């Protein structure tokens, strides 16, 4: 097991390097840069831009150096000092801007994941055990609908419904009356009461997938002879199901941790923009549109790195949970 962890950690290094390269290249791709736009804006306003001033700005942001030097400066700063560079638009260090929002994104993703588990588990088990029942068909229908509807569409419908029937505009994490107060019980409750909608909207697709996967896996397991054996032994039906086949069918729940992060981050980005939540989504979009390159690049880098960590955690959990996978992986390592 320890060898497995070490091996996986080592694998992460080149992948992280590749992610950082991609993040950097993505922010370099657009023609021109923020400075050029900024200077054009200044000139348009009639302010004269001194040559020396441009040079000073270029010097400050390291824009006049070749690409690989810029990359090395950027990644070096991150690795050595945790310095992600400056945001052009906000004139503040990127690190100040992103951590709050990434924290919220991660919190939202974790909450969404837990909620989808809690919803998907009973429904999935029910639809497999009572296959072809009305409840099964209803769950299947809702599940497919949840998969096929873009989550920003769900968010828009939610906005419309809450406006139309409750007369309030939805959005935001912290209600206005709590905006300036410190964290206390009231504020926490307020945040929770505002978060349930985004959590459900972002989790819709993931929950649908979990229900389908659990149902399909459990159906396969329920037909196996060991279930008959357990029944023949005289175990009560619910114990038969929960003790053996459900345990076998539940592995995909654990592997969700790995892929749910990229999915949730993507869904969260879209939903947050519609519901104006202060998470990564809106700021990333803004940064990309205004070519605020260090801000955008750092977001992509950190989100990518978090996804990797999530995948690693889920693989390790899975190996711990499922002896078959553990054996296969240790054999592969020794081979």
């Amino acid at each position, binding site marked *: 097991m320890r060898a497995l962890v070490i091996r996986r950690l080592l694998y992460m290094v*080149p*992948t992280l390097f*590749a*992610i950082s390269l*991609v*993040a950097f290249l*993505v*922010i370099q*791709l*657009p023609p021109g840069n923020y400075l050029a736009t900024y200077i054009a804006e200044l000139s348009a306003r009639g302010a004269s831009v001194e040559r020396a001033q441009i040079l000073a700005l270029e010097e400050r942001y390291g824009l006049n150096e070749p690409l690989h030097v810029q990359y090395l400066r950027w990644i070096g700063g991150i690795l050595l000092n945790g310095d992600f560079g400056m945001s052009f638009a906000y004139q503040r260090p990127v690190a100040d801007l992103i951590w709050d929002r990434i924290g919220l994104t991660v919190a939202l993703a974790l909450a969404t994941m837990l909620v989808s588990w809690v919803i998907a588990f009973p429904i999935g088990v029910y639809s497999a055990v009572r296959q*072809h029942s009305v409840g099964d068909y209803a769950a299947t229908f809702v599940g*497919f*609908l949840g*998969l*096929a*509807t*873009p989550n*920003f*569409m769900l968010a*828009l*419908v939610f*906005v*419309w419904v809450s*406006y*139309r029937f409750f007369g309030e*505009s939805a959005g935001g994490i912290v209600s206005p009356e709590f905006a300036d107060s410190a964290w206390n019980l009231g504020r926490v409750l307020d945040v929770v009461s505002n978060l349930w909608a985004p959590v459900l909207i972002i989790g819709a*697709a*993931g929950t*649908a*997938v979990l229900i389908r*996967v659990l149902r*399909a*896996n459990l*159906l*396969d397991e329920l*037909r196996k002879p060991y279930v008959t054996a357990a029944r023949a032994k005289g175990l009560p039906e619910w114990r038969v199901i929960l003790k053996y086949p459900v345990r076998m069918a539940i592995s*995909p729940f654990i*592997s969700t941790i790995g*892929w749910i*992060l*990229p*999915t949730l*981050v*993507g*869904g969260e*980005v*879209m939903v947050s*923009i519609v519901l104006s939540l202060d998470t*990564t989504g809106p700021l*990333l*979009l803004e940064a*990309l*549109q205004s070519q605020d390159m260090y801000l955008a690049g750092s*977001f*992509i880098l950190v*989100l*990518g790195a978090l*996804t*990797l960590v999530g*995948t690693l955690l889920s693989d390790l959990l899975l190996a711990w949970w499922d002896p078959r996978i553990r054996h296969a992986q240790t054999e592969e390592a020794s081979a």
Partner: protein
Amino acid sequence: MNPLARIRRDRPAPAPDPDTAGADTAGTAGTGRTAAAASQWRLIWWRFKRHRLAMASSAVIGLLVFVAVFCEFVAPTTPGHYSAEHTHAPPQALHVVDTRDGFDLGLYVHGYRSTRDEETLAREYTVDESVKIPVGFFVEGRPYELWGVIPADTHLIGPTDPDQRVYLLGADRNGRDMLSRIVYGTRVSLSIGLAGVAVSFVLGVVLGGISGYFGGRIDTAIQRVIEFTMSIPTIPLWMGLSAAVPREWSALQTYFAITVILSLIGWTDLARVVRGRFLSLREEDFVLAARLDGCGRARIIRRHMLPSFTSHIVASLTLAIPLMILAETALSFLGLGLQPPVVSWGVLMQEAQNIHSIANAPWTLLPGVAVTVAVLALNFAGDGIRDSADPYQ
């Protein structure tokens, strides 16, 4: 990362759906038709026909494709035909029979009476029962060029008087007909899904095939690339790449750029499917037999291996199209994908982004319904094909 693809991966094997497997085998055996003599594609077709949901979905897809191909003809008017007097006009109900004085068969809609709210300056519409606008099929309307070449002015449905306006699904903020815009958007959204899948197909089959056939170090390298591509959160990366598409590019250039961006990330699932099939087929006895017969490598792949997994690839392709459509919608919705005046479902959704437009004109959300219907139909059809892909099971 797409949740849809995950279902398929998390399932243990391409085993038949337990819901249908029993019924299928029993059915095929019971029909007593010359199952032994039928070709593989015929067997697949027999099995596919049993999937009622998949068959119905195929009909929906056929309809959507028809709309996409002949969108100029299907739409009541042109998508850019605006009217300042009809901003956010609500949908008109289509009446079939007029019974107010006697019995008058024929489609018609009622006109609007519009007033301006003094405070908000928004237009408010009430149905004007006294005005009757007859609606007909194959009517003369705004001239258009079918596929940009054939000039015509016949529309499938529209007001019989070309100067009248009919808004069956309401109007957007410029008084343009939502129905026409959704119909035109079908062409762009569906074709970008197809084009994106075509590019991913080439990438996926070539790389997956190489990976699966040669194995060894090449396989490891390609697998690492796939794992890496999958570990990046898709939407931020898509956003980053499409933000890099220059604004001044023409509509067609943007279209192709977005297609390439979508498929750059979408090829991985296909590559995995192809590799998996190659790996399992490589060990099959008939491949060994062909090799012993002295067949060359190219012939083994083309004549012996490809026919055994084309049906699986077709299924994966069908299931990949909806993901592309969803991705395009998401990007265009954010304003990073296709740009107006190009009309796609995502571009249309972008107009429904603010609370004012949703509150005053909830019908601007209708393109989203089109997306949902298309994605559902493609998913069900893809599932049907996947379940019938291996008729010998």
